[in-house]
C-alpha cells in the first residue's frame, strides 16, 4: 500500500452491496458518488455487487472504478439469497486479489453486504457498514431482521448512518455502543440540480411529486390531497413522477374527479430526467411515511422549489425550517401546509429559486461525505481486528444465548472453510489485480479527465 500523502494513508476499500447500477436508487448513487470521491482522494476503491441480467463479470466505470458483478442468485427485491458460506470462495478471491484492507458494506436489506461482513471478519479485515434505512420494532419480521442485524454488527468495526434518527434506530436495533456509530449524511450533486425558472409556467401553480408510488411513500395520502386541493384551486396542477403499485390509486382519483388535464402521471423517471421534471414546478410535495434521509427533498430544494413534507424519520434534520414546511402525516395537515406554501407563492414572499439553490448547494456535497468517510477509515485502520476467540466471545455474549451460539458455530465453520480454501489455493498464488487507476492514478488523469459525471464503461473480459 503506497502512502497517499504525509498525513493520509491510502486505503484499499471494497464496497459491497446488492444494490448498484444498473439498479437505480439512493444506495446505488451513494456508493457510486462516494467511490468516485474516494478515488479522487487517492484511495483504491472497488465495488462488488451481484450480476444484473447479462451484466456480469468485471466492468470499469468512470475514473477506473472497478465493479465486480458476481454470478449469485437473486432472491427477492434484487437481494441475493444467503447461505452465509457460498459466497466465501468468490469474495475471498476478490479480497486477496485486490489487496483489500477495508470492507465497506451498504444497506441492511442486502444479504450480500452481510455475507461480505461475515467473511471479511473471518479473514481478519476491517469492516465498516452503512445503514440507509429505518426499521420499526413492532412486528415479527422486524424482530427477526433486527436480531440478524445484531449478529452482523456486533463485531463490525464502525457503522455509518445517514441521519441522527437513523443512528438512534440502528443503535437500538443492533444494541450497539453509540460511540462506534458515525452520522454522515447523503449528498446531492448540486450541479445536477440547478434551478431554471424559465421552464415553469407561472400562470398556473404546479406541485411536483417525485417518488416511487408505493405505500411507504404515502401515496394514499397523495390520493386524498389531490381532489381536496384541486377543488379549492382551479389553477392548481400536479406533476407526479415515478412508478409503482400505487399508481392505480392515483389513476382512480384522476378518473373519479375528471382531472386528466391537471394531474399528469409521468411514470418511471431516469435519474437525469428528474431535474427536468423538478424545474417545471413551484412546490415539491413529499408524503413519505418513513424516511432515513430523503434525498428527494434536497434535490427539489436545490432546484429552488418550496418543499412541503411530512415530519417523519430524519426529514426534520435535513433542511432548515425556512426552506421546508413540515406537516403531520395526514391529508388535512398536508393540505394546510400546501395552502400555506401556495399563499406564500402568490404573495411573492418565497425566496427566489436562485437564492435557495445557492444556500442548499453548501449543505451536502459528496466531497464532504468522502472526507468524513475517510476519517472513519482512518480510525478503523488503527483498530485491532478481533481475533477468532474474541469474536466468538463477542457473538455469544452479545447476541443472546441461542442465536449467539448458533452464529458462533457458523463463524467457526466459516473459518474452517477459509482454511480449506487457503489450502486449495494459497493466497500466494493468487494474482494481484492491476489497479485500474494506474500508478498514482495516472491513467485516470490521462484518459478520463473531462468526462466527469458520465458513467463511461468498458467491458474487460473476466
Amino acid at each position: 500500500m503506497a502512502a497517499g500523502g504525509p498525513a493520509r494513508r491510502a486505503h484499499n476499500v471494497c464496497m459491497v452491496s446488492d444494490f448498484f447500477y444498473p439498479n437505480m436508487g439512493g444506495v446505488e448513487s451513494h456508493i457510486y458518488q462516494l467511490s468516485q470521491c474516494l478515488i479522487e482522494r487517492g484511495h483504491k476503491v472497488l465495488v462488488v455487487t451481484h450480476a444484473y441480467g447479462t451484466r456480469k463479470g468485471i466492468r470499469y466505470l468512470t475514473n477506473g472504478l472497478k465493479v465486480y458483478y458476481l454470478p449469485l442468485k437473486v432472491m427477492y427485491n434484487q437481494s441475493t439469497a444467503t447461505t452465509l458460506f457460498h459466497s466465501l470462495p468468490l469474495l475471498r478471491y476478490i479480497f486477496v486479489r485486490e489487496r483489500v484492507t477495508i470492507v465497506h458494506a451498504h444497506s441492511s436489506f442486502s444479504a450480500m453486504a452481510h455475507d461480505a461482513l461475515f467473511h471479511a471478519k473471518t479473514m481478519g479485515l476491517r469492516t465498516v457498514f452503512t445503514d440507509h434505512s429505518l426499521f420499526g420494532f413492532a412486528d415479527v419480521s422486524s424482530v427477526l431482521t433486527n436480531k440478524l442485524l445484531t449478529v452482523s454488527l456486533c463485531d463490525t468495526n464502525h457503522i455509518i448512518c445517514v441521519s441522527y434518527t437513523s443512528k438512534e434506530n440502528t443503535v437500538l436495533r443492533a444494541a450497539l455502543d453509540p460511540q462506534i456509530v458515525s452520522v454522515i449524511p447523503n449528498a446531492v450533486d448540486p450541479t445536477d440540480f440547478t434551478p431554471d425558472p424559465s421552464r415553469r409556467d407561472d400562470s398556473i401553480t404546479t406541485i411536483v411529486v417525485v417518488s416511487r408510488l408505493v405505500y411507504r411513500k404515502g401515496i394514499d395520502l397523495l390520493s386524498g390531497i389531490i381532489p381536496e386541493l384541486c377543488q379549492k384551486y382551479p389553477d392548481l396542477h400536479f406533476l407526479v413522477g415515478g412508478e409503482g403499485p400505487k399508481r392505480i390509486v392515483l389513476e382512480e382519483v384522476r378518473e373519479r374527479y375528471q382531472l386528466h388535464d391537471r394531474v399528469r402521471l409521468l411514470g418511471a423517471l431516469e435519474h437525469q430526467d428528474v431535474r427536468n421534471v423538478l424545474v417545471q414546478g413551484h412546490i415539491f410535495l413529499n408524503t413519505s411515511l418513513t424516511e432515513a434521509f430523503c434525498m428527494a427533498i434536497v434535490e427539489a430544494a436545490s432546484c429552488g422549489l418550496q418543499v412541503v413534507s411530512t415530519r417523519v424519520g430524519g426529514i426534520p434534520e435535513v433542511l432548515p425550517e425556512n426552506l421546508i414546511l413540515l406537516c403531520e402525516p395526514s391529508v388535512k395537515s398536508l393540505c394546510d401546509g400546501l395552502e400555506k406554501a401556495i399563499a406564500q407563492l402568490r404573495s411573492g414572499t418565497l425566496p427566489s429559486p436562485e437564492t435557495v439553490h445557492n444556500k442548499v448547494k453548501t449543505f451536502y456535497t459528496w466531497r464532504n461525505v468522502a472526507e468524513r468517510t475517510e476519517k472513519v477509515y482512518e480510525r478503523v485502520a488503527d483498530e485491532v481486528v478481533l481475533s477468532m476467540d474474541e469474536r466468538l466471545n463477542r457473538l455469544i455474549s452479545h447476541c443472546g444465548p441461542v442465536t449467539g451460539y448458533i452464529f458462533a458455530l457458523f463463524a467457526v465453520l466459516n473459518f474452517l472453510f477459509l482454511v480449506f480454501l487457503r489450502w486449495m489455493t494459497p493466497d500466494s498464488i493468487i494474482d494481484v489485480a492491476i489497479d485500474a487507476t494506474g500508478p498514482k492514478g495516472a491513467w485516470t488523469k490521462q484518459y478520463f479527465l473531462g468526462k466527469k459525471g458520465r458513467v463511461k464503461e468498458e467491458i474487460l473480459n473476466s
Partner: protein
Amino acid sequence: MVCAQVETSPRRRWQKVLYERQPFPDNYVDQRFLEELRKNIHARQYQYWAVVFESGAVAQQLCSVCVFVVTWWYMDAGMLSPQRLFGAGLVSSLLGYILFNVIDAGVGRQESGRTWWADLKSTLVFIAFTYGFSPVLKTLTESISTDTIYAMSAFMLLGHLIFFDYGANAAIVSSTLSLNMAIFASVCLASRLPRSLHAFVMVTFAMQIFALWPMLQKKLKAQTPRCYVAVTMLFALAALVGLMTISSVGAVLFALLLLCISCLCPYCLIRLQLFKDNIHGPWDEAEIKEDLSRFLM
C-alpha cells in the same frame, strides 16, 4: 482521528441537524441522544375482573359447541326426539327474539330499519328450504366414511372457535367464515342421524345456537352486564351437566378448560403485561389514521 477532536467552542450546543457543519466529531453522542424514545405507549393496563368478564365470550362459545355436540349425541342415541328439540328450539328462539327487541327498547331495530315482517319472512324461507332439502342433507355424505365425517366436524368446530368474533380487532377474525364452518360441521353431523327429520332439526338447531345465540349474547353484554354474567354461568353449568351425563371425565376436563380460560389466562395476561417492552420513536412508520376511501366514493 475522529475521537480526538474535542469541542472547539464548548458554549455552542449540539443540534440535531445535518445541514450545518458542527464542531463535533461524527460519532459524537449528545445527552439528547434517544430523548425521543418512548416505551409502551400503546400498552393497556388491564383489570383482572374486567379481563375475566371479557373472557366470558370465549367460554360461552366453547359451551355452545359443547351443547351442540351433546345434543347431537342424544339425538344419535335416540334419547331425544327431533320433535321435542324442535319445539324447545322454537320456544327459546321466540323468547330470545322478544328479549332481543325489548332489551334495548327497540333502538337497535329502529337503527337497522328491519321490520318484523322481514324477520318472519326470512325465518319461513329458511325453515322451508332446510326442510325441503333435508333428505338431500341426509344422503349427501353417505359415500364418506363416518370417521372422516367426525374428523371433519371436529376440525370445522375448532375452526369456528378460532375465527369467531370475540370482540378483538384482529386480522384472523371472520364471523362469516366462522359461521360457515359451524354450519358445515352441523351438516356433516346431521347426515349421520337416523332420519331426514333429524337432519332438518339438527341444522335448524345449529343455526339457532351458532348464529342467533351469539347475537343475543352480544346485546345482553352491552345492555345488562350483570344479567350476561348470570346467563353465561347458567349456560356453562348446563353444558357441564349435559356433558356429565355422557362422560364424567369429559365433564371434568371441560370444567378445567373453562376455569383455565376464565381465571388462569387473564392472570397470565396481566402478569406478562409487566414484561412488555415496546419501543417507539421518530423512526416508526407513520400510520394513516384517516379513512381515505371517501375520496374514491
